[in-house]
């Protein structure tokens, strides 16, 4: 039996990691996600995980690299400027094909920016913020409940594909409290024959590296990674549909914005506008087939994307829609959350223009 609690998103995420059998957490406090390490520190005596406050985010991600290589279920969490510092390490981890969960509780940027919620790190998350051709599996929770569900799912997907998974959340989801159903602790039995747990006489050494000097070898590594990413793209796309069955206007949003847009759809429907919401749950892989399918329907007049940024996901929608329908954008920047009323007003204007 699980249990129901009223929890902050950050605390719920930390509790979910514990219940998912996390064995190591390495991180550095940064607003608006410091409750994660605070919660894990309070709970540490009751559990069997390693908790370490690193000297910086650069150190934290490299500790994740090391512990993941040794076969441990590990996590780090941070917020935007801290996530930037982790990009080099993430590229190494992706190339070394190690499972781990990373979380970016996004705040307003660029630069040190503001500690208020934002979605300005979309590109960094889905395009691979570090160097080289790699991807992260990117999950976008839109409630405290999904902070829990996606943490568990993140660990599972990371192990399944031997690749880093991330949660792209934001300050509001991290700070707000909602009702949350916590799962029973999941018995975690690592099955990682590749891990560097010490050589035994009956097998060759396990080597974990991201360094391949010979171009021919490096190209093969890239082929292997791309084949894996293709498999993930084929199997792991997740999205939520809300009133899309007869929708003439399709709004797309993820995370907190998708909650705002659910309300927008309700308000629009009350006034006779046939609007529907398509919410990507995985930002990578992106639900391109679903977008393409909607874009080819005669009844759909246009799409618009609502983001707490200057418009980043809107580019993925355009790519997927292949010019079949107009794609508009509405967003707020710098930590400001769009209100349902202003989004609806924008939609009305676009309906008049079309």
């Amino acid at each position, binding site marked *: 039996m699980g249990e*129901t609690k*009223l929890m902050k998103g950050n605390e719920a995420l930390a509790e979910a990691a514990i219940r998912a059998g996390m064995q190591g957490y390495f991180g550095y406090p940064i*607003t*608006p996600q410091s409750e994660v390490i605070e919660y894990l520190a309070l709970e540490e005596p009751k559990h069997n995980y390693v908790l370490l406050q690193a000297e910086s985010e650069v150190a934290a991600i490299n500790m994740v690299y090391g512990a993941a290589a040794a076969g441990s279920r590990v996590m780090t969490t941070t917020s935007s400027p801290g996530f930037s510092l982790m990009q080099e390490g993430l590229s190494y981890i992706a190339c070394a094909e190690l499972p781990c969960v990373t979380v970016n509780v996004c705040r307003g940027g660029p630069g040190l920016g503001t*500690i*208020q919620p934002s979605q300005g790190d979309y590109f960094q998350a889905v395009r691979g913020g570090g160097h080289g051709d790699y991807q992260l599996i990117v999950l976008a929770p839109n409630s405290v409940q999904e902070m829990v569900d996606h943490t568990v799912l993140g660990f599972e997907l990371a192990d399944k594909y031997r690749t880093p998974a991330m949660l792209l959340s934001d*300050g*509001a989801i991290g*700070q*707000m*409290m*909602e*009702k949350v159903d916590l799962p029973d602790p999941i018995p975690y039995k690592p099955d990682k024959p590749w891990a560097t747990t010490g050589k035994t006489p009956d097998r060759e050494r396990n080597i974990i590296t991201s360094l391949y000097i010979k171009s021919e070898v490096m190209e093969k590594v890239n082929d292997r990674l791309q084949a894996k990413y293709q498999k993930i793209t084929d199997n792991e796309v997740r999205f939520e549909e809300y009133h899309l069955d007869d929708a003439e206007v399709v709004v797309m949003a993820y995370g*907190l914005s998708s*909650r*705002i847009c*659910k*309300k927008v759809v*309700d308000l629009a429907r009350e006034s006779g506008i046939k609007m529907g919401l398509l919410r990507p749950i995985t930002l990578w892989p992106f639900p391109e087939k679903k977008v393409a399918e909607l874009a080819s329907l005669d009844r759909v007049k246009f799409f618009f994307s609502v983001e707490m940024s200057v418009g980043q996901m809107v580019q993925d929608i355009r790519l997927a829609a292949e010019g079949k329908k107009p794609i508009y954008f509405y967003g707020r920047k710098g930590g400001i*959350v769009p*209100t*349902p*009323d202003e989004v609806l007003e924008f939609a009305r204007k676009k309906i008049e223009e079309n």
Partner: protein
Amino acid sequence: MLKEMIFSGFGGQGVLTMGSLLAYAAMKEGKEVSWMPSYGPEMRGGTANCMVNVSDEPISSPIVTEYDIVVVLNQPSLDKFEPRVKKDGILIWESSTIKRGPTRDDIKAYALPAIEIATEELKNVKVMNMLVLGALMKADPIVGTDSLMTALKETLPERYHHMLPLNQEAFELGMSKV
């Protein structure tokens, strides 16, 4: 039923606690809830608020800009949120420290000198927020009194449990003032 609310005042007055108690009690009654604090480089004496939604249905947007219920404990909060009370909505304001009261006549406004009552009648200004919560529950019984008292008991650390009777007294006194 969907109630959209905001509690606002100085940091330290207990506005975040009021909101979380109500959310906790409503959750225990099987309702959907969301509690969203203003957060930032806050400090005691600065302004703090929390938005609370209670609903029978899953809550879409946890952030709203117009409210069924507004509770304000200082002047800047009243000035900011009085215009955002929905028509026929409820406004509860702390009338012993707020000098300029509300001016709208299309809302239900309740003046409550909670700080004065808590100081003079209960000899403890810290339970002022429970007085206000009592007044709110009389004006609109969103959750049962028992649920709120249970919520307080379950969320208050045990070392403060000797304060429970005083909090209950404050809550009931608040109810009697509306």
